[in-house]
């Protein structure tokens, strides 16, 4: 009984105030009226990493900074800016880290080459098997 009471009290405890009390920015949680533009913004937001949570995209995060960035992205898309331009602007400030989209930097070449390598390897194995069966 006592344990249950403690558990109930724990469930009631208030979360620590770790974020701003200000209301979210206008377009943090509001979609753009034009669905085509919203889709553009959404696609970009899903590949921008949240700076506070670090393993979430800003589209998934409740952090206030992620909300501010979502609002900023929507407003810039509405003003006619291209998503890739906004991505480049963010990379200029936070480095490749901020984008989930793989780039063509030399360090990622093995990543791009891996599928081709494995396909080549597979073809070689298949060829070997076919040859063996025929002989």
């Amino acid at each position, binding site marked *: 009984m006592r344990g249950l009471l403690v558990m109930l009290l724990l469930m009631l405890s208030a979360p620590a105030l770790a974020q701003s*009390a*200000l209301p979210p920015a206008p377009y943090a949680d509001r979609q753009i009226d034009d669905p085509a533009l919203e889709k553009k913004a959404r696609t970009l937001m899903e590949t921008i990493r949240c*700076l506070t949570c670090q393993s979430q995209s800003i589209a998934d995060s409740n952090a206030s900074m992620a909300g*501010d*960035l979502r609002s*900023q992205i929507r407003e810039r898309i509405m003003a006619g800016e291209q998503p890739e331009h906004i991505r480049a602007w963010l*990379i200029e*400030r*936070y480095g490749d*880290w901020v984008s989930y989209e793989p780039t063509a930097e030399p360090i990622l070449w093995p990543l791009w080459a891996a599928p081709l390598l494995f396909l080549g390897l597979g073809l070689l194995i298949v060829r070997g098997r076919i040859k063996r069966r025929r002989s």
Partner: protein
Amino acid sequence: MRKLLIWLPLLLFLGFFGLFASGLLRPDDRIITSKLVGKPLPPFVLPAAASDRPPLANSELASGKPRLLNIFASWCVPCAAEAPQLMALKQAGVEIDAIAIRDARPDVDAFLKRYGNPYARIGLDARSEVQIALGSSGVPESFVIDGKGRIAYQHVGDIREDDVPMILDRLRRAQ
């Protein structure tokens, strides 16, 4: 050839094991530094965040003398913890300006009344826009700005007591 090939899975396993072990044992580094260090401050003009301090624009930071730009917020607990260190820096003759993130004037006033006010100017960045333009990823952060308005150094997190001499040294070197 076939005999050697038998060892391949074990080798692969050991390779991956080593890779994961080294990744797991390496200390977690979650500090995201701004790529703008060494570059000029982005342009910004902010309204005043406190009743008794003037507002802040980037042009005012290129004053011919190194300054400290502190990113803080009244709702941020480590910001209160670094207040005595900022006071010490001010007493050492450092000019400190600040940007208050996602804040409101009454809250900033109350925060400064409680923890002291080491700032010359305070700009209000209600929607984190300047914070993002600076490549800053949280509060508190401090930027050493050289006389020409370039970012010379970024300190992520609160300034601890033993960081003060290092910050003073960075300011001297930004001359």
